[in-house]
C-alpha cells in the first residue's frame, strides 16, 4: 500500500463523514438551530444583566411571557395552516378593552368580562377567517388591514373611556389572583399558556382537525384534492388565533387593571418574529407549538433584556427587524436547499483495496471461467414479469416469484404458461423461502420480513431489530431486507443489506462501500428479531447448508462468501469461505449434488476496483456528475456459480450474448432444471442441468419427503 493510499484509508475510513448526512436526515435538526439560539440568548442576557435569573425578576417576565406565548401559539397554528395573522395585536388590545369595559365600566362579574373578551377574539378571528378562508383573500394584506382597523377602533375606544376606567372602583379577588398571584410558583398566565400549548400540541399531532391544518399548510392543493375542507380549515385557524389572542388580552387586562394606548403595540411583528425565529415555516406545514414557544422566549428575552440594559427607543424594532430578516432568510434557504445539502453530504465513500482475483474470461482456464450455457434457457413469463429477484418452486411444482409491482406471482405447473397474482404485498418482494408447513416467507424490500400462508394470508413477521446505541441513523428499521432462509429448527435467518440506503438506492451503497450489512435471525417461537452479525459490505444471499449446522451468506460488494455456524464448536461465529471472486455474489441456494448454487449479479471491473481505492474521486463523482455518468459496478454480465461445502468452485456458467440473462440474482434447482431470475430481467429462465438428479426438489431437501 502506497503512502497516498494509507493516508486515504485513514482519512476516509476513520473520519466519520457519514454522520453529518445522518444527522441532517433527522427532523430534530430543524429544532436544533432555534434551540441553540435560545440557549445563546438566555446565556448572553443572563450573564450581562445582574439578577436576570432571580425568582422575582423571572416571575415578572414569565407573566408577560405567558400572555405573549399564547398569542404566538395562535400565530403558529395559523402559519402551520399556510396563512399569517398580523391582526393579533389588535385582537389582543380589543379583547383587553372588552374585559376592562365589562368589568370596570359596566361593573359586571369577572367571568362575564372573560366571556366578552373571548367573544371579541372569536368574532374578530371569524372575520379574518371568513375573509382569508372563504373569500380567499391574501392573508398578509387582509390581516394587515384588519389590524389597522382594529387598532383604529381600539384607539378610539381607549381615548373615549380611559377616564371612566380610572374612576371605576370595581374590584375582584379573582382578578387580583389572575393578575398578581402565583400558583405553585408560577403565575396563572404561565399555567394557562402551558395548558394551551399542550392541548394545541396534542391536537395538532394527534387529532383529525390538527392533521387537516398541517395537510392544508403542507400542500393546499393536495389537501383540497384529498377531500379536506380547505376553506373551513383555514377559517378555523384564524378563529383559533383570535381565541388565543383574546385570552392573552384578558390576562393583561387582569394584570394591568386597565387598557392603554400601548396595549398590544408591535405585538404582531413580535409574534411573527417569534414564530419564524422558532422555526415555524412561512407557507405552512412545518413547525410545532414547541418551536413557537422557543421563539417566544428568545424574542421576549431579547426585547426585555435590551430595555433593561438601557438601550434607547427603537432598539427593539432594530433587533426585531434583524431577527426577522435573518430568520426568514435562513428558513427559506434551508427549506429550499436542505435536500440539496443532504444529497451533497450523504454519500461518504470509504477506501477499500479489493484482492487480486482470478479471471472469469471464457478460455482463461480458471474455475470461474464463464461459458454461454444460460443463453439456451427457456423463458417463462417473458414480458409479463418485471424484476423476479428470487424464484422458488413449491412441492406441487408451481413456480413463485416477486415482481417490482409489489406482488408475488404464481406460475402453474407443468408448462408455466398460466399465472396469477398469488399475493399482493405492496413492497418489492426479494428473497423467498418455504417453511415446514408451506408458508412462503419473503424479504420485502424496505418493509421487512413477511409470511404468506398457502391460503394467501399475508402476515408481517418482522420489521425491526434492536436499536444499537451508537448508531445515529435508525438502525432498528429494516431498510433493505434482501434474502432469507430457514434453519431446521424453524428460525428464519435473513440479511439486511445496508443501514444507510433504501432498497432502490443500492447503487449508492455500492459507491459508498461502507460496511453496514447485517445478518439477522427471526425466531417464530417468540416473534423476536436479533442482529447476529454487523459490518459487512452489502450482505445478500443466505442459504442453510445441507446438514443444517451452518449457513452461507454472500457479501456482495466485497465479493466474498462467509459461513456462519449455527451449532458445533464454532457456533455463533463467521468465517470467510470464498474470497476475491471476480463477480458480485447474490442469492445462494442448494444444489441436488450436495453443492450450492450462487448467483452473480455482476462482474468486477478493474476500473471500479480502482475507484474503490480513490474515495475522494467517488465523492467528487457523486457531487459533481449527473447520476447517468457515475461509475457503477458492472451489472451487465453475471452468471451462476456452483461451489462445494469447502468453498471450492465447481463450475460457472453465464449468458455471454447478454440476450436472456445478463445479470442473475437468483437460481433454484428443481427436478433437474435450474430456474433463473434477475432483478432487472423481464423473464424467468428454465435451464436443463446436464446430469442432475431429476427427482430432487428443494422443499424435500429442507423438510423431507411429502408428509
Amino acid at each position, binding site marked *: 500500500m502506497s503512502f497516498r493510499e494509507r493516508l486515504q484509508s485513514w482519512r476516509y475510513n476513520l473520519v466519520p463523514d457519514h454522520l453529518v448526512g445522518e444527522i441532517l436526515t433527522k427532523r430534530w435538526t430543524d429544532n436544533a438551530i432555534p434551540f441553540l439560539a435560545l440557549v445563546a440568548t438566555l446565556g448572553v442576557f443572563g450573564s450581562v444583566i445582574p439578577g436576570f435569573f432571580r425568582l422575582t425578576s423571572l416571575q415578572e417576565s414569565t407573566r408577560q411571557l405567558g400572555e405573549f406565548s399564547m398569542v404566538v401559539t395562535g400565530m403558529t397554528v395559523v402559519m402551520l395552516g399556510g396563512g399569517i395573522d398580523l391582526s393579533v395585536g389588535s385582537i389582543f388590545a380589543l379583547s383587553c378593552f372588552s374585559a376592562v369595559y365589562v368589568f370596570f365600566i359596566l361593573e359586571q362579574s369577572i367571568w362575564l368580562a372573560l366571556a366578552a373578551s373571548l367573544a371579541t377574539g372569536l368574532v374578530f378571528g371569524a372575520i379574518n377567517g371568513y375573509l382569508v378562508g372563504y373569500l380567499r383573500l391574501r392573508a*398578509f*394584506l387582509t390581516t394587515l388591514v384588519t389590524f*389597522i382597523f382594529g387598532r383604529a377602533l381600539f384607539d378610539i375606544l381607549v381615548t373615549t373611556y380611559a377616564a371612566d376606567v380610572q374612576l371605576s372602583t370595581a374590584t375582584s379577588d379573582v382578578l387580583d389572583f389572575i393578575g398578581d398571584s402565583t400558583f405553585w410558583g408560577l403565575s396563572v398566565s404561565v399555567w394557562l399558556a402551558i395548558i394551551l400549548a399542550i392541548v394545541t400540541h396534542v391536537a395538532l399531532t394527534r387529532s383529525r382537525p390538527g392533521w387537516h391544518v398541517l395537510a392544508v399548510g403542507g400542500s393546499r392543493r393536495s389537501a383540497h384534492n384529498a377531500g379536506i375542507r380547505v376553506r373551513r380549515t383555514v377559517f378555523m385557524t384564524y378563529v383559533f388565533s383570535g381565541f388565543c389572542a383574546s385570552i392573552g388580552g384578558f390576562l393583561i387586562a387582569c394584570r394591568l387593571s386597565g387598557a392603554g394606548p400601548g396595549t398590544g403595540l408591535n405585538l404582531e411583528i413580535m409574534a411573527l418574529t417569534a414564530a419564524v425565529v422558532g422555526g415555524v415555516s*412561512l407557507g405552512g406545514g412545518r413547525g410545532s407549538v414547541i418551536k413557537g414557544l422557543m421563539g417566544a422566549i428568545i424574542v421576549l428575552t431579547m426585547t426585555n433584556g435590551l430595555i433593561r440594559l438601557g438601550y434607547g*427607543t427603537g*432598539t427593539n424594532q*432594530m433587533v426585531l*427587524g434583524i431577527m426577522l430578516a435573518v430568520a426568514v432568510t435562513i428558513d427559506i434557504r434551508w427549506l429550499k436547499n436542505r435536500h440539496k445539502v443532504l444529497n451533497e453530504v450523504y454519500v461518504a465513500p470509504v477506501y477499500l483495496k479489493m484482492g487480486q482475483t482470478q479471471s472469469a474470461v471464457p478460455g482463461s482456464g480458471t474455475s470461474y471461467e464463464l461459458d454461454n450455457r444460460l443463453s439456451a434457457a427457456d423463458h417463462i413469463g417473458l414480458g409479463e414479469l418485471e424484476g423476479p429477484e428470487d424464484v422458488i418452486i413449491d412441492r406441487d411444482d408451481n413456480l413463485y416469484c416477486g415482481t417490482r409491482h409489489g406482488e408475488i406471482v404464481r406460475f402453474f405447473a407443468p408448462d408455466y404458461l398460466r399465472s396469477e397474482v398469488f399475493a399482493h404485498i405492496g413492497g418489492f418482494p426479494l428473497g423467498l423461502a418455504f417453511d415446514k408447513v408451506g408458508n412462503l416467507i419473503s424479504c420485502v424490500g424496505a418493509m421487512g420480513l413477511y409470511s404468506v400462508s398457502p391460503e394467501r394470508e399475508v402476515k408481517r413477521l418482522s420489521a425491526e431489530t434492536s436499536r444499537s446505541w451508537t448508531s445515529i441513523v435508525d438502525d432498528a428499521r429494516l431498510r433493505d431486507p434482501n434474502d432469507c432462509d430457514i434453519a431446521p429448527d424453524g428460525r428464519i435467518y435473513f440479511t439486511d443489506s445496508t443501514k444507510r440506503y433504501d432498497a432502490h438506492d443500492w447503487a449508492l451503497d455500492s459507491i459508498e462501500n461502507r460496511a453496514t450489512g447485517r445478518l439477522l435471525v427471526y425466531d417464530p417461537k417468540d416473534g423476536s428479531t436479533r442482529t447476529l452479525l454487523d459490518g459487512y459490505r452489502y450482505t445478500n444471499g443466505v442459504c442453510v447448508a445441507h446438514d443444517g449446522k451452518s449457513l452461507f451468506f454472500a457479501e456482495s460488494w466485497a465479493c466474498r462468501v462467509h459461513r456462519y455456524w449455527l451449532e458445533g464448536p464454532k457456533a455463533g461465529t463467521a468465517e470467510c469461505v470464498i474470497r476475491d471472486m471476480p463477480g458480485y455474489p447474490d442469492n445462494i441456494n442448494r444444489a441436488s449434488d450436495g453443492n450450492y448454487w450462487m448467483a452473480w449479479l455482476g462482474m468486477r471491473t478493474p476500473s471500479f476496483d480502482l475507484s474503490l481505492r480513490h474515495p475522494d474521486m467517488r465523492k467528487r463523482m457523486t457531487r459533481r456528475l449527473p447520476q447517468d455518468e457515475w461509475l457503477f459496478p458492472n451489472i451487465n454480465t453475471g452468471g451462476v456459480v456452483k461451489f462445494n461445502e469447502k468453498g471450492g468452485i465447481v463450475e460457472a456458467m453465464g449468458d455471454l450474448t447478454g440476450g436472456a440473462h445478463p445479470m442473475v440474482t437468483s437460481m433454484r434447482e428443481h427436478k433437474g432444471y435450474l430456474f433463473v431470475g434477475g432483478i432487472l430481467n423481464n423473464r424467468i429462465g428454465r435451464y436443463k442441468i446436464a446430469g442432475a438428479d431429476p427427482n430432487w426438489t428443494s422443499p424435500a431437501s429442507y423438510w423431507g419427503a411429502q408428509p
Partner: protein
Amino acid sequence: MNAIGWRNLRSLNQEGIVFAIAVVLFVAAAIGLPGFIDPNNLVAIVRSVSVLGILALGMAVVIIGRGIDLSAVAIMAMSVAWYLQLLNTGTSDGLAFAYVLAGVLAIGLLNGFLVAYADVPAIFVTLATGSFVFGYVRSQLITQDAVPVPQGHWVELLGGLRFLDIPIEVFVFAGLAFLFFLFLRYTKWGRYIYFAGDNPIAARNIGIPVRPMLVLRYVLSAFVALIAGLLTAASLHSINTRVVNSTLLYDIVLVAVIGGIGLSGGRGGVRNVLVGAALIGILLNAMTIIDIPLLYQNLIKAAILLGAIIVDGIINPRDEQTAQQGDI
C-alpha cells in the same frame, strides 16, 4: 346581482369607477361643504397628496413587478432625520448627503437582494428592513423623535418656493409622475417590469434579467422615498420620525390599490396612481373639513382599504388548483 350584471361590472375598469367616484365626491363636496371649492383649498388638496403620491409612485413600480415595499415610510422618515441630524451636528452638507444617499441605496439594495436572490417574500423582507431602519436610526443615529431643519438650509428654502402660488412639491410630484410614465411606457426596462410582474418565470425564460431588475425596483422605491422625505421636511421645517408608526404606509398602499394597480402584479400605471391619489386627497380633505377626528379617519380609511381588497379578491379569485404554495 345576476350574472349579466356581474359581467358588466367586471368589464368596467376599476380605474374608471374610482375616477367616477372621485368626480362625484368632488362635486358633492363642492356643493355641500363650505370653502371646499376655494382655490386655496384645492391647492391644499393637491399639496397634501403630493408626498403621498410620490411615495405611491415608487410603491406602484414595485407592485407592478409583483412585490411590495413596506419599508418605504421608514426609509422616507429615517433617512431625512439622519440627514438633518448630521447637518445639525456640523457635518458638511455634501458629506452628509452622500452618507444618507449611500444608506438609502444600501437599504434598497438589501431589500432587492433578499427578494431577488434569497427568494424571501417581499412582504417579510421589507417589513423587517423597515423595522430595522427605524430602530437603528432612532436608537443609534438620532437623539429625539423630531429633527428640525437647520436655519437657512436649502431644504428650508425649498419649502418656501412657490411658482404661480403653487408649492414646489406639486411640481415635483407632476414631474416625477411624468418621468415614471415615460419610464414605464416607453423604455425597454419599463415594459419588462410588466412582463416580470405578470409572469416572472416566463419573463426569466425569455431572457429578461428578472433578478437585477427586481433589485433596481427596490432601489428606485427607496430613492423616491428619500425625495418624499426631503419634501416633507421642507414643508414642515422638521421631520417627525413617529410618522413611521402612523398609517401613512397603508395610505400609500391604499392609493395604489384603490387606483387599480392589482396586487398580483403586471397591471396598472401612473394614471392609476393619479386617480387613487385624487380620490384619497378629496376624501381626506372632505373629512377634515367636516371635522372628523383623526382616529375616525383612520377607521374609515381602513374600512375603504378592506373593501378595496375584498372587491379585488372577488374580481380576481384565487383557485385551489393554481394557488401558489406559500403565496400569502
